[in-house]
């Protein structure tokens, strides 16, 4: 996983990047990742669900996976020479047997 350096791309989930004007729209950029849960963490989560509350193992797993999806989206945007992605959205869907797909998408733009 190559990490996109901070400050190279501006992300926003609003229509514009606040304080800038969009000069060019470069189309939809997407990034997705599929993660399966770890058996050992799953057993731990099973014990935790006796009392309810937060399942920290799942929270971290999904956070990590979502960052990966976001990162792939950012790389897609960088390959189109964008300097910003607007209207970023996330979607989660569970694929067969305990695997989840995390998906991030947005519109790549050039802003000034």
């Amino acid at each position, binding site marked *: 996983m190559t990490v996109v350096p901070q400050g190279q791309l501006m992300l926003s989930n609003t229509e514009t990047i606040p*304080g800038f004007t969009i000069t060019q729209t470069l189309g939809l950029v997407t990034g997705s990742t599929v993660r399966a849960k770890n058996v050992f963490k799953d057993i731990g989560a099973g014990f935790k669900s*006796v009392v*309810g*509350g937060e399942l920290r193992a*799942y929270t971290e797993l999904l956070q990590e996976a*979502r960052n990966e999806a976001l990162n792939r989206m950012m790389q897609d945007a960088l390959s189109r020479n964008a300097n910003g992605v607007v209207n970023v*959205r996330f979607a989660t869907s569970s694929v067969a047997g305990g695997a989840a797909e995390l998906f991030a998408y947005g519109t790549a733009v050039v802003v000034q």
Partner: protein
Amino acid sequence: MAEDSVAGVILAVLIPVFFVLLFTFGPYLLSAAVGTFHQRGLQKRLEIRKQVTLSSFSTDPIHSLSRPINVNHPIQGSGLVMANLSISPSWWQMFVVSIHSLFGGNITTLDSVIRWGREEVIQRLREEAQKQGWDEVINVRLETAMIRKSSNASNRKDRGAAMEYLIYGTGIRQSPTEVRLSSD
């Protein structure tokens, strides 16, 4: 002699019955007692954290409008802010829900944990915004996903259900000086 054998037979029946009941309902009773206590503590700690964060901002910094509340302060920077949380109800709560689902109607058992989860994830976004130094988070969206299917009572292997909350928005930093823009 006869009394002894009668008592022996009764004990021989009662002890296995006791253990069967213990291992069948014991976990649920334990879950009911410990889970209620645990979840109450979570709620209490959340209220304290919420007050601490809110007192450091003048108003609640997060909202779902697409532009900042005060438009007269020029924007100096922006970025995506995210927070997530996975929660699960306790076994006891799932058990009560499975009984409820026979008759339908309003399920108040899950209210506490679901409400806690939402407030907790919103609080996490506030804390994340504070950590990254944003003044305000605009266009906040909350999403919910089921990450583990809810159990049905007959399937003993999967008693836990889990759901994930995702909250995200655009954090903005505004300059402290006010600039009056020409109103149009």
